[in-house]
């Protein structure tokens, strides 16, 4: 049967610059380059290229460029090349289309439709180089009020996560990403005073030392979950759903389950790790309540327990239920959230934007007067520090970053995480590839990203005349909408620019 698929990318090799050193050949796990012994030349194979740019970056003479393959279909707004190719692929395989990373469709990006304020005249902006600028953030259940007896604090607070900036590395399991990626994020969290999240694959023995900066996840597969694990972290997150694939479970193919992954996940080596779509002990909110308190019991009420859900249509009501079920924090994962692997149609068509979900949940919890009892962590599509600032102003206590964190480690967003051939050593367990991510470098880069964002957030806060992040949290007056409908503005709870 003839294969209808055509290359997505074109590899251009400048023969004047290529020295046939074969670095590209050795670096491409997709075998898009090879050495022709007969010609004594390096040659390229466009059809194998995924545009991860590993070869481009590694080429010592900058002889390589990757371009979009110029083959055009007849112009058609409905039947685009991508749509047609998807059908070819399914006609060939009969399979569910699978992909990695987050939704890449051109839906509105609300972050880019919100603008921040700055002080002018009536209120001085504050220079972060001269004045303290505080980003400290606490995640955890907070009482409505403090009580003092004889001038002394009489209220005992439950354990809080203390963050030096409102950014946490989001859940990405060992299995979906490499141990070196985990190490990088763990170490960066420690250096910059924040947290990372294990994802649902357990915590590798080597990383227990980072426990004080670790949020351990409990997901439907319960991989790697045991009392020691639960107590190793600083907090526990129950994962109900993921923004990239709401309503869908997870599937780590057996080839990624090597000995180390198998030990960590507590499953036999080489077996598929299947996370069911629902937790089979949570079919209702009261079941969730029980799991939250089972985990609190297991950890002696010393660890905050949060619940992560995908942002779906009824997210505000669900979040309210979770708050009332005793969660210390709620993670909202929007429809642009990333994934190691998801069915394409689910990823691209299910769920709602995080900006709207976050605003709706914050508003709802405030209307119910319970916003203080639970922290909100906003996950998905945070690309830069101004997105962080906007999320905080909308009402988030902190944000999770996943894709941005991986990009700091070298990810080029080629969306092939699901293939296990990540040339950057991130979304793979292939030992030839995982060693490409030196966790010392990775930790430095990820920490640098956090540091840079800290600096930028401080600049923006200072510009708004604010010197402590809590004065921005939920302060939607600092936002104005641009190019949004009245309905959007209402949901976001912000005025339009010029108002």
């Amino acid at each position, binding site marked *: 049967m003839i294969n209808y698929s055509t290359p997505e990318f074109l590899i251009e090799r400048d023969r004047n610059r290529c020295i046939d050193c074969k670095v590209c050949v*050795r670096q491409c796990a997709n075998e898009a380059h090879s050495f022709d012994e007969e010609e004594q030349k390096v040659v390229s194979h466009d059809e194998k290229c995924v545009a991860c740019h590993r070869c481009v970056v590694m080429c010592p003479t900058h002889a390589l460029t990757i371009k979009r393959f110029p083959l055009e279909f007849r112009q058609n707004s409905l039947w685009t090349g991508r749509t047609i190719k998807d059908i070819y692929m399914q006609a060939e395989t009969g399979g569910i289309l699978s992909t990695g990373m987050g939704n890449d469709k051109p839906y509105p990006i609300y972050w880019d439709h919100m603008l921040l304020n700055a002080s002018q005249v009536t209120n001085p902006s504050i220079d972060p180089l001269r004045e303290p600028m505080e980003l400290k953030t606490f995640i955890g259940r907070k009482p409505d009020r403090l009580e003092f007896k004889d001038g002394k604090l009489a209220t005992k607070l439950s354990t809080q996560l203390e963050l030096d900036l409102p950014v946490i590395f989001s859940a990405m399991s060992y299995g979906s990403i490499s141990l070196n990626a985990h190490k990088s994020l763990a170490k960066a969290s420690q250096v910059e005073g924040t947290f990372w999240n294990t994802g649902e694959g357990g915590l590798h023995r080597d990383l227990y030392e980072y426990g004080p900066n670790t949020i351990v996840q409990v997901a439907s597969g319960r991989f790697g979950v045991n009392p020691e694990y639960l107590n190793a972290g600083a907090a526990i997150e129950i994962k109900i759903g993921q923004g990239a694939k709401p309503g869908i479970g997870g599937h780590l193919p057996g080839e990624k389950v090597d000995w180390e992954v198998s030990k960590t996940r507590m499953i036999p080596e080489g077996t598929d790790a299947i996370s069911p779509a629902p937790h089979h002990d949570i079919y209702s909110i009261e079941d969730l309540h029980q799991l939250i308190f089972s985990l609190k019991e297991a950890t002696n009420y010393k660890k905050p327990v949060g619940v992560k859900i995908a942002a779906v249509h009824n997210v505000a009501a669900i979040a309210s239920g979770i708050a009332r079920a005793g969660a210390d924090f709620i993670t909202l994962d929007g429809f642009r959230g990333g994934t190691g692997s998801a069915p394409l149609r689910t990823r691209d068509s299910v769920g709602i934007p995080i900006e709207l979900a976050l605003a709706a949940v914050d508003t709802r919890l405030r209307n119910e007067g319970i916003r203080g009892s639970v922290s909100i962590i906003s996950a998905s599509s945070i690309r830069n520090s101004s997105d962080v600032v906007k999320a905080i102003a909308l009402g988030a206590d902190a944000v999770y970053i996943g894709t941005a964190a991986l990009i700091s480690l070298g990810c080029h967003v080629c969306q092939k995480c699901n293939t296990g051939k990540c040339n950057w050593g991130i979304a793979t367990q292939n030992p030839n590839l995982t060693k490409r991510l030196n966790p010392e470098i990775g930790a430095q880069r990820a920490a640098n990203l956090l540091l840079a964002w800290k600096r930028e957030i401080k600049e923006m806060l200072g510009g708004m005349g604010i010197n402590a992040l809590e004065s921005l949290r939920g302060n939607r007056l600092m936002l104005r909408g641009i190019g949004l409908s009245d309905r959007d503005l209402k949901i976001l709870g912000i005025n339009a620019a010029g108002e």
Partner: protein
Amino acid sequence: MKKVYAKEEYCLGCRLCEVHCIVAHSDYKNDIVKAFKKQEQRPLPRVIVEENRPVSFALQCRHCEDAPCTTACITGAMQKDPVTGVVTCEESRCVGCWTCILACPFGAIARNEQGKKVASKCDLCSELGDIPACVKNCPNAAMVFEER
């Protein structure tokens, strides 16, 4: 003395160290393309990448304290600098007898037979007065240049 140490767990096996070693010992120290395309006799890489996937690492002269290559050298070309500790081969005196190859327990000396036969080995880029090119250009810090 400062030496190059490999961190095999991070070696990619990309062999950029070899490329940059060649350049650093060519006539075009700042132009990779010319070093490869213009220079008639391209220097041999003085760093050896050993590879048996997934393990790989770069290995170069260890500049041994008792440097067996220097005691073995029949011409006196192979010398250890008493001050810097760097072992270098004075190529004009080398006759290519390969006794150093017989003696080097690391197999870190190569035969360069392109012109006059000479032993080719790591000189820690002493001439460049910088950190060795292999270390500097390793994309994954799989080599460090340090005192231990």
